[in-house]
């Protein structure tokens, strides 16, 4: 590493681990003091009572114990429970709360993702009411879920969300429900009473939930379709919390398989219902409610894994540096004493990989959370506009939106043009069009949410394993600082619940094809080129080329057929659609990191706390971007190339296969026109009249029609120039960065 050390010495690099000042700028809450305060408050809970529980071995049982139960009170006191509510319901933060909830999950998961799940699941249970409930339902339930204030004598209501059912029913495929709802009693002029039967599997919060929002299907011709119903602990019938899930992860959350057999008034149907021709018609089907709930909460899950990766950096550095201290022959001045395992390049490079995965995951997750913060009010405005225009019913709405989509594409194109070149009046007109703005945000949110859930948790789980390996044998012991082993195992659940990776890939394979998204993606690609013009050392140019390669591949694959003439891009062909979804997620992760690094560069110097370190920080993050892009380019190149050429049949030494091969006759004919040709094709794929062929590995496949692909790919590979130098520099920075004396939570 000596040479690198020299180079690094020329450029300032990271001095301390990135603190709150850095994070607030990168994740864009430097001006949100309310969020900063909540983050600090949650941190105190995470690194205090939560860490204490883990350190005391509370995770060694899947049962919900009285010790674990104390967490609920800690959450209540720190404002974690009430953060989800609106001020009029007893909450304390106004406006959209995606970024807020993301920060809460991030802080808790920094120590223990089960604790984060515990807090998240309560919100998940309430989300159907929050997002889709009638005003009466909101007024009834939200305030009761606010922790009781001093002097108030009531039990805090807690919610759980019951979608998943025992095998063979809902899991990944949430369409088929075994949970049933029937009319139990319907007296003339009165509210119908419903009979709800639902068995849940893996339902979080079930040890203490007093209400459950449960997905059920109609088993009665007097009820149409499916819906979500609110069940209360005191409803008439059976409320059986069921057996505890014997889970080996996230033990600081409660999970059980409950059984409900209850009678409830029809007013409990989430979003209300209408009665038509003697039939109860729920205003919202279960899938409509679930869609709007998961859309938001999945982002939060993605941030849990991100937090864990970032939390691993400090304990690993400390372990590496202290690895050889304390030996008899130790000289405190020696590199062995000071750097320990950090003398080894591989250990440093692998830690850079873990760190950069965490950075990119956090950047992607927080970008998604902010996007939803923009999207939420826009969605409400859209509903208002549709109401005002009297547009009702799914079909009419779809038609209106289809029309608006064209305008939205136009808007996106106009917005990307320099002011001087665009039609200002038209731009302003479209900018003021709520439906247009809604669609633009929606198309991006529909991609960002699954991309973040998929990439952060899936790739994150793989990288958490790497983090554990960096601690050697210590990594798999209970004493390992930072609870890294738990964090690794937990990541598997984050990749599974709220829809496993297959569900995210499936969703992406649809949403990423929206013309509106693709148009934005094209513009983002151009933006990335512009960034690389100004900041060549971020690797933005390689990223832009990888984005271009992906775009070419997506378009090609939608038209292309496989060797048997079957369409390549169709929903059943996961082998094509899923890897493309993965590739897109990598691209978005890298892009988000680049944008955050630029934000730090732009706004960091304004913060006096960072003044002395900003140059080093900027250099370090540039190197991290370049390093990450190096990996992204590798993955995207591999996926796209495999898909673009992999479904063409490899030629054999057969005349009909060898469309690109020459026949001896052709060569002879051409020789008369191009003298010397025969000599030049010696060793090429020439098939003789007797079907003989040269002795070589095999006939070469044709790339006809893929010249552009090959050019982009070649350019992309060339654009990787410098990415390993960047990695070396980032690795060197890890040997110099100052870390605290000890971890700020117990082990």
């Amino acid at each position, binding site marked *: 590493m000596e040479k690198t050390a020299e180079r690094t010495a020329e450029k300032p690099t990271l001095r*301390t681990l990135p*603190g709150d000042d850095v994070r607030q700028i990168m994740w864009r809450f430097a001006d949100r003091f*309310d969020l900063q305060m909540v983050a600090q408050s949650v941190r105190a809970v995470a690194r205090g009572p939560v860490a204490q529980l883990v350190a005391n071995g509370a995770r060694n049982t899947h049962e919900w114990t009285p010790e674990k139960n104390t967490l609920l009170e800690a959450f209540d006191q720190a404002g974690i429970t009430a953060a989800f509510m609106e001020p009029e319901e007893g909450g*304390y933060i106004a406006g959209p709360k995606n970024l807020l909830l993301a920060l809460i999950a991030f802080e808790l998961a920094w120590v223990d993702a089960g604790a984060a799940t515990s807090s998240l699941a309560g919100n998940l249970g309430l989300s159907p009411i929050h997002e889709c409930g009638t005003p009466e339902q909101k007024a009834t339930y939200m305030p009761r879920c606010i922790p009781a204030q001093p002097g108030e004598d009531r039990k805090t209501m807690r919610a759980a969300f019951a979608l998943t059912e025992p095998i063979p029913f809902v899991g990944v495929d949430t369409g088929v429900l075994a949970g049933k709802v029937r009319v139990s009693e319907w007296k003339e002029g009165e509210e119908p009473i419903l009979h709800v039967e639902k068995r849940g599997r893996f339902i979080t919060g079930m040890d203490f939930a007093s209400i459950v929002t449960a997905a059920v299907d109609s088993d009665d011709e007097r009820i149409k379709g499916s819906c979500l119903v609110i069940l209360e602990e005191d409803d008439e019938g059976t409320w059986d919390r069921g057996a505890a899930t014997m889970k080996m992860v996230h033990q600081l959350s409660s999970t059980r398989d409950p059984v409900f057999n209850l009678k409830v008034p029809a007013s409990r149907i989430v979003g209300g219902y209408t009665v038509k021709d003697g039939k109860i018609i729920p205003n919202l089907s279960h899938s409509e409610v679930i869609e709007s709930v998961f859309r938001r909460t999945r982002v939060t899950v993605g941030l849990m894994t991100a937090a864990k990766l970032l939390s691993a950096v400090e304990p690993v550095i400390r372990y590496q540096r202290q690895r050889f201290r304390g030996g008899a022959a130790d000289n405190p001045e020696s590199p062995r004493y000071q750097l320990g395992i950090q003398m080894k390049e591989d250990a440093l490079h692998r830690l850079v990989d873990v760190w950069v995965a965490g950075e990119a995951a956090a950047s992607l997750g927080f970008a998604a959370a902010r996007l939803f913060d923009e999207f939420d009010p826009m969605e409400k405005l859209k509903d208002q506009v549709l109401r005002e225009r009297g547009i009702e019913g799914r079909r009419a709405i779809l038609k209106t939106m289809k029309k608006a989509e064209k305008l939205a594409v136009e808007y996106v194109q106009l917005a990307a043009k320099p002011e001087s070149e665009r039609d200002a009046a038209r731009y302003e007109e479209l900018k003021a069009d709520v439906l247009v703005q809604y669609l633009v945000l929606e198309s991006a949110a529909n991609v960002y949410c699954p991309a973040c859930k998929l990439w952060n948790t899936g790739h994150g789980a793989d990288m958490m394993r790497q983090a554990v390996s960096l601690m050697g044998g210590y990594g798999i012991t209970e004493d390992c600082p930072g609870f890294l082993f738990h964090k690794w195992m937990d990541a598997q659940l984050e990749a599974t619940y709220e829809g496993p990776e297959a569900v995210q890939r499936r969703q992406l394979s649809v949403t990423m094809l929206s013309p509106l998204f693709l148009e934005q993606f094209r513009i983002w690609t151009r933006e990335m080129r512009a960034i690389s013009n100004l900041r060549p050392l971020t690797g933005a140019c390689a990223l832009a080329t990888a984005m271009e390669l992906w775009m070419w591949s997506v378009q090609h694959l939608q038209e292309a057929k496989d060797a048997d003439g079957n369409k390549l891009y169709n929903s059943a062909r996961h082998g094509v659609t899923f890897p493309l979804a993965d590739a897109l997620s990598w691209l978005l992760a890298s892009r988000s990191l680049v944008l955050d690094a630029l934000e730090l560069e732009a706004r960091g110097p304004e913060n006096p706390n960072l003044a002395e370190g900003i140059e080093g920080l900027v250099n370090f993050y540039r190197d991290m971007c370049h390093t990450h892009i190096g990996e992204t380019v590798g993955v995207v190149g591999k996926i796209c190339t495999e898909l673009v050429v992999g479904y063409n049949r490899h030629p054999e030494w057969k005349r009909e296969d060898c469309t690109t091969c020459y026949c001896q006759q052709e060569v002879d004919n051409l020789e008369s026109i191009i003298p010397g040709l025969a000599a030049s094709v010696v060793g090429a794929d020439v098939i003789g009249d007797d079907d003989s062929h040269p002795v070589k590995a095999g006939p070469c496949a044709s790339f006809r029609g893929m010249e552009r692909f090959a050019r982009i790919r070649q350019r992309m590979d060339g654009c990787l120039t410098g990415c390993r130098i960047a990695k070396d520099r980032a690795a060197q920075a890890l040997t110099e960065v100052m870390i*605290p*004396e000890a971890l700020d939570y117990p082990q």
Partner: protein
Amino acid sequence: MTGGFQIVVCGGIVPNPLQTLEPITGPSGPALKNEAMLPAVLDPWAWHALFEAANLAKQNPGSKVWLVALAPKAKLQQVVMTIAQKVPFELIAIDGPASGFAESADVAEELAAAIEAIPGLDKSKLLVFGGWESASRGAGTTMQMVGEKLGIVDQFQGVDELKAAPDGSFEVLERIEGGRHQVSTCAGAPALLGWATGNLPEPPNNPQVGMANMRGVMPALQKAKPAKAGANGATYASVALPQQRRATRIVKDTPVEEIAREIAAWIKG
């Protein structure tokens, strides 16, 4: 006390104690390596004083708590985020160096001036709280000078408890040698109290309190006046961190006398 107290808590900030502190010579004298970038906390002694102030205010209706802090304001902002949800207070920020190398006389001057400038200050109700020492300097000189400059002659240091009577008088427990306390009775405000740890636990967070505090904190930070305090004129011949020595043994059920004997023997060498 009728009408309540006006309690002003003086509190600086110090680097988070888990951080590596490495003295260096900066452009304006001695400093700690990367100090601005390291996370900071409210000085733990002042932290206790703040809890005690809030508790006293709660028990005496009409009372109000101010927190006067001299620190780099961007750093102070981060620290306030960690304490704002604990207790209600109004922040008065003074923008200046928070390091243990700043002259305590200068710091006292600034603090006293800021207290004098509090609108509606009524010295007959004034209790000035602070730490009996700080985690950055540990000299215990600042608060005494603040008192002197404000003309407050009733001063108590190493305070662990204050019990106010309905007539406005109060009883104070000050630490003295041998783990014992000196009990004094003071006729009433104004007085200055340099707190030791007190005996209140850290109050739980209360987001509503936090949101209320926040409304005042941001304007206070924005209008923070630059302070003249510093290490001007002072030269430091040498700077070193106290050497940490650790010799830990875990032995179960050892009698207290035994432990004491061992420690005494160890100190004697």
